[in-house]
């Protein structure tokens, strides 16, 4: 089996490279020390006619079903991308020091030990079927006892919606703008939330159970409304992609995305100033937290302009505007109910939480428009881009 003939990213798979180099080297350790490792399952498309591109869109001969991390570790070792861990002990002869060696080194210096690796009887099961559902089912069953996240399992479910969610998660917004970790498919999870909210037309509960139900309901219905909901999500995300910066610090957590999304949806005409508002809102919120903290210590200090706000420091776009921003901040800190926002976001999967968070941010935006943009303010309005 050659590496380029294996699809490592079939739809139902989780994200790659979850293992650290140390984890990977530990697997190689087991192989060289002749321990057994679990079976690897691959879908084998060299049989039958995998013309159904749904099943094998990559058109490769194999697709990994289970054992992706293990197989990646083996290939990484063969490709000399990882070395044996420094504390490696070769059990047949503990006096031999192999720590830090790559495959190439091992071949040259200890060819006989390298044979242990080369001749390791790797157990690979070929799974032959022309039904996508069966492969997904096998994936779910094999992984039932492993800690897969909800979105990883949901991704392996059948029907139209997992594909729509995949498509949304491939949007530029997710690829370029977000700054949260997606190692455990948090992007897919967020995409699923957006699709569900858009489909229902309002904030609804988006806990794991709701999302799962959504996917299985959709499987029965296969209604074309899902497609149009997906299109709407993508068009709003296009605005967000334009408004936010690459790896935007404002997008460090996934929980706020549905709230921001709804804000963009309701204020599409103002999408160009929304980021600046959100920036201000976030800065004001952090300032508010600081004030709260200092109050609890019996102090009341508002130290503006706030040079020590991480966001301001890292935002090159706003450096020359700091002065007017600090004035705006001051207003914002006083006016908006950040407590409501924060409490709402504490459970970003709850309908009531999302609604109250949104209410707070919406109110802040209305205030922002009034005071700084459309000009009933005493301070100079922020420039419209």
């Amino acid at each position, binding site marked *: *089996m050659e590496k380029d003939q294996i699809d490592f990213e079939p739809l139902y798979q989780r994200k790659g490279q979850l293992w650290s180099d140390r984890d990977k080297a530990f697997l190689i350790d087991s192989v060289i020390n002749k321990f057994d490792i679990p079976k690897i399952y691959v879908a084998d498309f*060299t*049989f*039958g006619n995998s*013309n159904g591109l749904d099943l094998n869109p990559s*058109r*490769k*001969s194999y697709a990994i079903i289970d054992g992706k991390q293990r197989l990646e570790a083996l290939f990484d070792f063969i490709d000399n991308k990882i070395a044996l861990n420094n504390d490696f002990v070769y059990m047949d002869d503990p006096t031999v020091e192999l720590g830090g060696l790559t495959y190439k080194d091992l071949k040259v210096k200890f060819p006989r030990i390298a044979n242990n690796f080369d001749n390791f009887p790797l157990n690979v099961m070929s799974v032959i079927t022309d039904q996508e559902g069966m492969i997904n089912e096998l994936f779910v069953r094999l992984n039932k006892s492993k800690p897969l996240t909800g979105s990883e399992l949901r991704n392996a479910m059948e029907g139209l919606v997992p594909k729509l969610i995949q498509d949304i998660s491939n949007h530029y917004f997710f690829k370029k703008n977000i700054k949260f970790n997606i190692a455990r498919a948090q992007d897919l999870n967020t995409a699923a939330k957006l699709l569900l909210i858009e489909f229902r037309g309002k904030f609804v509960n988006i806990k794991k159970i709701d999302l799962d139900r959504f996917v299985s309901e959709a499987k029965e219905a296969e209604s074309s409304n899902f497609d149009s909901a997906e299109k709407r999500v993508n068009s709003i995300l296009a605005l967000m992609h334009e408004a936010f910066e690459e790896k935007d610090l404002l997008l460090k957590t996934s929980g706020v995305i549905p709230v921001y999304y709804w804000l963009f949806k309701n204020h599409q005409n103002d999408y160009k100033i929304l980021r600046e508002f959100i920036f201000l809102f976030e800065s004001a919120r952090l300032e508010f937290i600081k004030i709260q903290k200092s109050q609890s210590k019996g102090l009341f200090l508002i130290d503006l302009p706030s040079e020590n706000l991480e966001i301001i420091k890292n935002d090159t776009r706003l450096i020359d505007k700091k002065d007017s921003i600090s004035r705006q901040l001051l207003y914002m800190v006083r006016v908006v109910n950040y407590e409501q926002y924060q409490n709402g976001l504490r459970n970003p999967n709850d309908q009531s939480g999302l609604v109250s968070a949104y209410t707070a941010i919406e109110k802040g935006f209305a205030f922002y428009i009034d005071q700084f943009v459309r000009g009933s303010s005493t301070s100079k309005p922020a420039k419209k881009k």
Partner: protein
Amino acid sequence: MAKKALAKHKIETLKDFTEKIEELLPLSEDRILWYRGSGSTDYTLAPSLHRHPSITNNEELLELEGKIIDRFNQRSVPYVSTNFIKEWEILFYIQHFGIPSRLLDWTENPFVALYFALTSAVTKRVKGETVYATDVNVWVLDPVLWNRAVLSDNTYTGGILSLESKHLTAYEPRTSFELMKNDPVCMFGTYNSARIVAQRGVFSVFGKNRKPMETVAIEGGFNPNTLQCFYIEIKDIEPLLTSLISIGITDSVIFPDLSGLATELKRFFKFRV
């Protein structure tokens, strides 16, 4: 996909034949072309198994192939000294004795194909005389292009398949019908008989559909260089055969055994072959 007819080239002389081949060779994927002569332009590129007079169901035909192999195994022992390790080898072997299988013969030697086309030309009796009845064909196949087109669902970038290839397992004798691939692929056989060696024999092996190769190429919209056809008109058959024998492509060359020599002697002394 656009359905175009295959390219056809008219051949009148040996010079035409060699020139045309020299023209096509550089256009082929790996400077490899395979050839197959057939005694009538009406014949299609279908294997002998598909020509059963009454069984037309694909699944039954595949079962039939298994039964033929079984019967051959039971009865051939007194005549065959070879031990066949894989059933594939039985298929190659029996193919050269005309026993029906999913294999279709090709040759790497264009003169061998021309010999087969000319010597198997269909004849008819007119006023007590035997005359040629139809034009004959030499098919020209680019096996590498062909395999890449058929195995495009596996993004295949290799060449002609050999028995070691994973892509051939789906075509192995007795593979269950559902698991088999649809369209034929090109493979090297094992040189396990003097005839295979002499004729530079290579094969295409069919899968579960019964479409002949020219139909597969046309319907699949294959690159036009994949499969082409030379044809020789009735009037040119005899003179071309004479030229071919003159340059040493004779019966005993193609069939390096006593019966090949016998045919050659008959032809030389002007008996009817």
